[in-house]
């Protein structure tokens, strides 16, 4: 049973991630009064990309991308999906926080090796954006960990079963608001889409990726999407005892993100950081203080 979970939970995550990507394109199209591609479109793209013969810029170009995807896959082993969390007793929230670095870092090394300044600019923006949302995000996570007095994400989830969803319980409500405010940035959707800006910097880090590279990058993107949503559901919305309910919750968060994506224009990177470091951070900070004051 454990082995099966170990093997299938990453695959499930990939599947859901890719499904979300397809759904996102469909929903966006419907919002824009278009018919839109089939939901399976990302899968078709990936098959096509894998069959193409692309230019490679060197070993790190390959390894970095592989590392990035592998890192993201490993996170899914630590994140509870419903009750499925095959490796949750090998490390908790801190491990997840750090594993979340491997994805961007691998991507950064890979696209850095491509020797294209567009990629470098994209990476620079990506890291800056990450810096921007990590500040409030860390405050939120610390508030949670302090409030529940644990660093294990499964415990955070199970404790919410007793106390109610963190988002709606008293000391954590501010953190919940802050998390909602930074969620688009963590998912990389529109107001914070400046990293990949295709028109400005030729899709940034992806500029030299073609064929299988782009396929891996797409999968990584899908996984990142999955992880972002799943984290929110687990940390703030009580997770779920049942994978189906968990999936439904994820779907709700996903739609929220897509709607934001559909109606907002893109922010410049400095505007994005300024936004993230102002209200979300202040609220998250207040939330942490609130937790400290009421907790002790």
């Amino acid at each position, binding site marked *: 049973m454990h082995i099966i979970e170990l093997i299938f939970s990453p695959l499930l995550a990939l599947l859901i991630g890719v499904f979300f990507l397809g759904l996102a*394109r469909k929903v966006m*199209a419907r919002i*824009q*009064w*278009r*018919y*839109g*591609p*089939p939901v399976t*479109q990302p899968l*078709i*793209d990936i*098959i*096509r*990309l894998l*069959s*193409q*013969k*692309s*230019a490679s810029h060197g070993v790190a170009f390959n390894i970095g991308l592989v590392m990035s995807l592998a890192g993201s896959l490993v996170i899914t082993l630590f994140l509870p999906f419903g009750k499925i969390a095959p490796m949750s007793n090998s490390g908790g929230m801190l491990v997840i926080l750090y594993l979340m670095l491997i994805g961007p870092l691998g991507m950064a090394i890979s696209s850095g090796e491509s020797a294209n300044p567009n990629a470098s600019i994209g990476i620079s923006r990506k890291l800056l954006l990450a810096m921007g949302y990590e500040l409030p995000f860390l405050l939120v996570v610390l508030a949670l960990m302090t409030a529940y007095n644990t660093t294990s994400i499964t415990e955070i989830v199970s404790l919410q079963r007793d106390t109610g969803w963190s988002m709606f319980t008293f000391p954590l409500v501010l953190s919940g608001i802050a998390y909602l405010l930074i969620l688009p940035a963590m998912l990389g959707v529109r107001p914070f889409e400046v990293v990949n800006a*295709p*028109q400005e910097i*030729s*899709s940034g880090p*992806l*500029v*030299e*990726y*073609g*064929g299988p590279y*782009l396929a891996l990058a797409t999968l990584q993107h899908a996984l990142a999407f999955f992880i972002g949503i799943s984290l929110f559901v687990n940390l703030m919305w009580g997770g779920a005892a049942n994978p189906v309910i968990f999936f439904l919750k994820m779907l709700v968060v996903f739609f929220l993100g897509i709607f934001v994506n559909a109606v907002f224009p893109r922010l410049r990177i400095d505007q994005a950081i300024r936004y993230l470091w102002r209200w979300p951070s202040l609220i998250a900070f207040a939330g942490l203080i609130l937790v400290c004051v009421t907790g002790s």
Partner: protein
Amino acid sequence: MDRNQLKKWFQNPVKMAHKYSLHVVYFCTGCGIIEIPPSITARWDAERFGIIPVATPRQASLFIIAGYVSLKTLRSIIRTYEQMPEPKFTVSLGSCPINGGMYYDSYNTIKHLEKYIPVDGMIAGCMPRPEAIFVGVTHLWTLIDKDMADGYKRYRSNYSAYRANQEKILGKLEWPPLFPIHGEE
């Protein structure tokens, strides 16, 4: 999706994927580009066929040259084409890439794009409307189905000739040959 389609998907998923996932890099220096925005936005919505514009040739599988090609842009067209990963398809838009069109006597415009890069499909018209673009795309599907969209293979096998043509009109090129040139081996 009918049964026929499904059967095709199982028989050759790669080919089907190529058909329904055309990522396009538009070469937008000609006047044909004015027809592209309607075709990819809500009015005609090319995305329902899996056709979306991408930012760089590396990510693309279809190259649409929208209109006349001047000497200056030819250089970039060749470069862009060579940077696309194989398999790749080229479609030209309008009369000008076919035979020079209204610029047939211009000193500075390419008359026959095929001499410099292989073109899989040409959509005539001045300018072709978006519908014509979709007709062109469906023709391309047929070609892919029949393995006749083999421009990239031709480019590879006849590279010496293409390169010679390119150098004849552009002079020395800044980049090294993509494939080995036969005459020199």
